[in-house]
C-alpha cells in the first residue's frame, strides 16, 4: 500500500493540478501533495515497514509477461526518501517565484515526481521503462516552457540524448526478456538468468548507454550544462538532485546482478577510464566558469564520476558509500541550487563577476551557504565526507581493480580541484566589496531560511551519525554483491 501510494499521490494530484485555477491554489496544492508523499515515505520507513505494506503486484499485460510489480527495498527506501524530501524543499524555496500558467507548472512537477518514484520502485523491467520515460516527458515540457532564453534548443538536445539512450535500453530489455525461460519481465527472473559473456557484453552496452547519458558519464555529458543552465531552477533541482540518481540506481539494480561478467569487466576498464577523464575534465572546466549554474553543473559531473567508479569496485564498503552518497549528493546540490535561485531572484544575475560582498548584506545566507559548500567538498562531519571516504576505501580495497594505484590519486586530485572551484565560488559571491548591484541587498526570507536550515540539519545528521542510513541499504548491497558473485561462481 505504501509503495502504491508513493506513486499514486503525486500522479493523481499532478493530473488534478491541470484543472486548478489560479497560481496560488496550485502552489498550495503541490506543497500539500508533496508533504503528504513525504509523510507516507517516512511512515514506510518507520512504523509501517512490514514487507506486506512495501510491495504491490497486479497483472498488467499477462500476454507479454509483464506485471505491475513494485517494491520498496533498502535502496528504494533511501531514494524515495530523497525524492520525497526534495519536492517540498523545492516548492518552499520557490514559493515567491511567479510562474505564468502556474497550474501547469506544478502539475508537471508532480508528474515528474510520480515518474521518479516509479523508477525507484519498479520491479518489472517494462514498468521500469514506462516510469523512466514518464519522468522525462514532464521535465521536457517544464524546461521548454519555463526555461531561459535558449531553452528550446537546449532541452531538445537533452530530450534527444536521453530518448536515444532509453530506446537502446529498450532493445536491451527486450533481448533480456527473450532470453528468460517463461518470457517474463520480472526482475527475479532476470536475476536468475545465466548469460554467455559475449552476449552480456552487448546487452551491457545497450543498457549502460542509457544510464550513462542520464548520470552523465564523460562522453555523453554535453547536454547537461546547457540544460541545467536553461531550465527554471526548480526543474534543475529535480534534474540534478534526483534524476541523475536514476542512472546510478539503474546500474546497481538492473545491470550488476543481471550481467555481472560484463558489468565488472567493462566497469573495471572502459567505464572507469571514462569516468576519471570526465572527473578531471569537468573539474577543470568548473574552475573557469563564470555562471554559477554552469559551475555547479560541471561539479555534478565530477561528483557523479567518483560514484560511477565506486559502483564497479565490487566491494561492500564502496557500494555502501555510493548508496549514502546518492542521498547526500542530492541534498547538497539542491542546497546549492537554492542559493543560486535566491541570488538570481534578488539580483537578477548568476555571474560570479557581477556579484560580491553578499556576506555583509545577508549574513544568515552566508553562513548556510558556506556550510553547504563545505559539505559538497566533503569536509569531515558533513554528510559527503562519509560517502566519499567509504567510496575511496572501496576503490582502494577493490578485489577486481588492477589500476587503483592510478585511479585513486586521479580521483583524489578532483577532490582538491573541487575544493578550489567551490571555494572560488563562495569567495566571489560572499566576500570582497559590494558593488552597485549588491549594495542594496538584504537577507533571505523565512521560507528560504527554513529550507536551507532543513538541508544543513540533514548534512550534519548524516555526517555525524550515518549508521541508520547505512543499515537501511546494507541488505540491498549484500544482496546485489552476492547475486553477482553467485552468478559468476555458477559459470565457473
Amino acid at each position, binding site marked *: 500500500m505504501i509503495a502504491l501510494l508513493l506513486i499514486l499521490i503525486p500522479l493523481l494530484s499532478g493530473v488534478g493540478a491541470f484543472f486548478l485555477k489560479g497560481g496560488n491554489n496550485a502552489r498550495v496544492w503541490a506543497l500539500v501533495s508533496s508533504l503528504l508523499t513525504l509523510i507516507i515515505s517516512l511512515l514506510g520507513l518507520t512504523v509501517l515497514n512490514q514487507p506486506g505494506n512495501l510491495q504491490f503486484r497486479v497483472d498488467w499485460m499477462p500476454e507479454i509477461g509483464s506485471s505491475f510489480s513494485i517494491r520498496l527495498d533498502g535502496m528504494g527506501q533511501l531514494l524515495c526518501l530523497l525524492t520525497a524530501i526534495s519536492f517540498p524543499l523545492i516548492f518552499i524555496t520557490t514559493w515567491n517565484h511567479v510562474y505564468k500558467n502556474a497550474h501547469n507548472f506544478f502539475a508537471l512537477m508532480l508528474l515528474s515526481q510520480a515518474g521518479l518514484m516509479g523508477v525507484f520502485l519498479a520491479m518489472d523491467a517494462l514498468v521500469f521503462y514506462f516510469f523512466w520515460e514518464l519522468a522525462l516527458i514532464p521535465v521536457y515540457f517544464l524546461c521548454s516552457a519555463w526555461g531561459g532564453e535558449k531553452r528550446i534548443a537546449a532541452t531538445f538536445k537533452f530530450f534527444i540524448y536521453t530518448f536515444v539512450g532509453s*530506446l537502446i535500453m529498450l*532493445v536491451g530489455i527486450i533481448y533480456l526478456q*527473450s532470453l528468460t525461460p517463461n518470457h517474463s519481465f520480472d526482475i527475479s527472473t532476470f536475476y536468475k538468468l545465466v548469460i554467455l559473456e559475449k552476449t552480456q557484453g552487448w546487452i551491457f552496452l545497450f543498457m549502460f548507454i542509457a544510464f550513462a547519458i542520464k548520470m552523465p558519464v564523460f562522453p555523453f555529458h554535453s547536454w547537461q550544462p546547457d540544460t541545467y543552465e536553461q531550465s527554471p531552477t526548480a526543474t534543475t533541482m529535480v534534474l540534478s538532485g534526483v534524476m541523475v540518481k536514476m542512472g546510478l540506481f539503474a546500474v546497481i539494480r538492473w545491470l550488476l546482478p543481471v550481467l555481472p561478467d560484463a558489468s565488472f569487466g567493462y566497469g573495471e576498464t572502459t567505464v572507469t577510464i571514462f569516468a576519471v577523464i570526465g572527473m578531471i575534465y569537468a573539474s577543470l572546466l568548473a574552475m573557469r566558469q563564470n555562471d554559477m549554474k554552469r559551475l555547479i553543473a560541471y561539479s555534478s559531473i565530477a561528483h557523479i564520476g567518483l560514484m560511477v567508479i565506486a559502483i564497479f569496485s565490487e566491494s561492500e564498503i564502496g557500494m555502501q558509500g555510493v548508496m549514502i552518497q546518492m542521498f547526500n549528493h542530492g541534498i547538497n546540490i539542491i542546497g546549492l541550487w537554492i542559493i543560486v535561485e535566491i541570488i538570481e531572484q534578488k539580483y537578477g544575475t548568476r555571474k560570479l563577476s557581477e556579484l560580491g560582498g553578499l556576506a555583509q548584506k545577508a549574513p544568515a545566507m552566508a553562513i548556510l551557504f558556506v556550510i553547504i559548500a563545505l559539505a559538497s567538498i566533503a569536509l569531515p562531519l558533513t554528510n559527503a565526507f562519509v560517502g566519499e571516504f567509504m567510496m575511496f576505501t572501496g576503490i582502494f580495497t577493490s578485489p577486481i581493480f588492477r589500476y587503483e594505484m592510478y585511479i585513486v590519486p586521479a580521483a583524489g586530485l578532483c577532490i582538491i580541484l573541487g575544493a578550489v572551484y567551490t571555494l572560488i565560488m563562495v569567495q566571489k559571491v560572499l566576500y570582497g566589496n559590494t558593488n552597485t548591484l549588491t549594495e542594496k541587498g538584504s537577507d533571505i526570507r523565512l521560507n528560504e531560511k527554513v529550507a536551507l536550515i532543513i538541508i544543513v540539519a540533514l548534512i550534519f545528521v548524516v555526517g555525524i551519525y550515518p549508521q541508520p542510513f547505512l543499515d537501511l541499504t546494507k541488505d540491498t548491497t549484500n544482496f546485489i554483491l552476492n547475486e553477482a558473485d553467485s552468478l559468476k561462481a555458477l559459470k565457473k
Partner: protein
Amino acid sequence: MNALIILAIFGVLMMFSGLLLKQKSLIRLLAIAGLFISLLANILETRGIHFFSIHTEGMLNFDRFALFFNSILLGCTFIFFLLTAKEIEKVGKNYADYFALIFFIHCGIVLASSFSSLLILFLGIEIISIPLYILTGSDKRNLKSNEASLKYFLLGAFSTGLMLMGITLIYGEAGTFVVNNLHSVDKAPGVLLIAGIMLLLFSMSFKVSAAPFHFWTPDVYDGAPTVFTSFMATIVKAAGFIAFIRLFYYGFGNITGEWQFIIAIITALTLFIGNITAIFQQSVKRMLAYSSIAQAGFMMMALLAMNNTSTEGILLYITAYSLSTIGLFAILVKMKDYTFDGFNGFAKHQPLLAGAAVIFLLSLAGIPLTAGFISKFYMLKAVVQTGQFLWLVILAVLMAAVSVYYYFRVIQAMYFKEGAAPTLEISNSFKWTISIVAVFIILAGIFPQLIFHWFYF
C-alpha cells in the same frame, strides 16, 4: 461477408443520395449511419452471426484475423467520418459521390484482407486503387491535385501490371491461384515462382509506399485534398499491409529464405529514407507524408518477423498509427496555414486541441503510455524473437529517435512559440471527438488488452 455486402449496398445508395437528398447534412448522416451499420454487422460476424450465406468457392476466407482487422479499419473510418465528414463538403460539388467512393474502397479492403485466391487479391487491390485515383484528383481546379492524381494513376497502373505479371508467373509454376497451395514443401522453388514472388513483392511495396518504391507518396499525399490524404495514409495503407502480410504468410511462409532478406533491406531503406527526409520538410502535411513512409518501415517489420507477436503487433500498430494520424490530419484540416510556423501559438488559442495533438504526436513518436509505444514495442519484440536482424532493430530504434525531431517540432511550435495560429471555425462536437480519440490512445497504451480482448475471446 456481412460487411462486404452491406458496404456495397451503401455504396450504391450513396451514389443516388446525391440526386435524391437535397440537404447535405442528411447525406452525411446517411454515410455515418451506413458505416456504423457495416461496423456492427462485421462485429456480429466475429461473434458468429452471419446475415448472408454465399458460397465463395474457397476464394474468400473470413477468418478471425481478417474480421478483426476489418472491425478496426471500419472503426477508424467511422471516426474519420465523425471528425472530417464536414470538411469533405468543401472539396468539391459531388459530396455524395465521395462517400460512395469511400464505401467502395472499403469493399476492396474487405476483399484484400480476406482473400485466399490470388485473383481476389488482385480484385481487392484494384477496387481500392481506382476510387483513390478519383479522390486524389477530386479538387478539380487545383493543379497540384490534378498532377497528383495523374502521377498516382500512372505509377499505380504500372505497379498493378507488375502484380498481374507476378500472379501469372506464379500460376505458371503452381498451376493454381489458391494461396495456400502455391508451393509444396517437397521440391525446391523454381525460377518462375521466385520471379513471381519478387514481382508481387515489388508491387505490394509500391502500394504500401515502402522505399525504394515510395517516390509517388509525398507528391500524391501533398497534392490530394487533405481530408483524403488522411484516409489514404492510414486506412488504405493499413489495408495494403494486411494484404501483403496475408499473401506472404499463407502463400510463401514456408520459403522465407527466398525473400526475407530482401524484405529486411526494404525495411531498413524505408525507415532510413522516411525519417531522414521528414526532417527537412517545412509543411506539416508533407512531413506527415514522409512520416507515413517511416511508419510503414515499422509495419514492414511484421512481415519480416512472421510470428504470433508480429500478428498481434501489426493489429495494434495499425490501430495506434491510424487513429493518431487521423486525429492529426483532422486538426491539420482546420488550420489555415499548413507550415510548421502556422502552428505557432496554437496551444494558447486551442488548449484542448493542442493537448490532443500532443498525445497523437507522442503516440506516433512511440513515447510510453501511448498506444504508439506499445505497438512499436511489439514490433521490436517480434523481430528480436526471430533471433536474426538485430542490426535492423538497432536501426529502427535510432530512426525512432530521429522521428522525435520532426514530431516535436510541431509541439515546440504549438507550445513554446508565439503566434496567432489562424484556424477555421471549430465546433464543440469536434473537440469532444478528438478528446475521446486521444483518451483512447492513452488507454490503449496502458491497457492494450482493451484491443486484444476482441482478438482473444
